[in-house]
């Protein structure tokens, strides 16, 4: 997708949620207020870059689809369009974790809960973050429960 849009005149951004990928911080839950605030700040920063025309769009599926709605709800001035897919704003009725208000135990606490948390704790790419690689990863590991890391 990045190549498709870059070749057609867009600056395409794969943004790592705090505590994941090459980002600082620790991932403590999905869709935290900090996470949404980070998205708002990222939109503003991207709009101000010398290669940006000041107009930012967000797109995504599932988790990132939720993010587009959550950031858009905060009204960042530079955000002009969103394209979410496989999303909901009714997390207790239509989400993968809850259906009709009932927690999907097997999926939420086992399949998704254990795998996502463990993957979030993976190290950043050394060539992307340089000398802070080990500090970032150590912070991430210290902030993640040992039970989860052991899976």
């Amino acid at each position, binding site marked *: 997708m990045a190549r498709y849009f870059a070749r057609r005149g867009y600056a395409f951004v794969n*943004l790592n949620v705090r505590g994941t990928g090459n980002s600082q911080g620790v991932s403590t839950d999905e869709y935290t207020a900090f996470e949404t*605030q980070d998205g708002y700040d990222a939109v503003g920063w991207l709009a101000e870059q010398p290669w940006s025309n000041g107009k930012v769009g967000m797109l995504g599926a599932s988790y990132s689809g939720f993010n587009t709605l959550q950031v858009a709800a905060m009204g960042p001035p530079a955000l002009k369009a969103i394209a979410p897919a496989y999303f909901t704003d009714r997390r207790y009725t239509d989400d993968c974790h809850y259906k009709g208000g009932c927690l999907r135990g097997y999926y939420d606490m086992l399949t998704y809960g254990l795998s996502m948390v463990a993957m979030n704790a993976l190290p950043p790419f050394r060539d992307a973050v340089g000398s802070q690689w080990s500090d970032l990863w150590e912070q991430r590991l210290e902030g993640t429960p040992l039970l989860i890391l052991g899976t």
Partner: protein
Amino acid sequence: MKTNKRDISSAKAYEYQVSNRYRIPTRSGIELGATISRPTDDGKFPVLV
């Protein structure tokens, strides 16, 4: 109704560059990592996140 559609599939094909070393500051003080693919041409472009 007249629409203003741009067929991006037939638009100019830009050469582009990719970097995974972008650090985006946030008000909380942490930096977010980003990989950005963007045209190498001079100029200003819309951004997709």
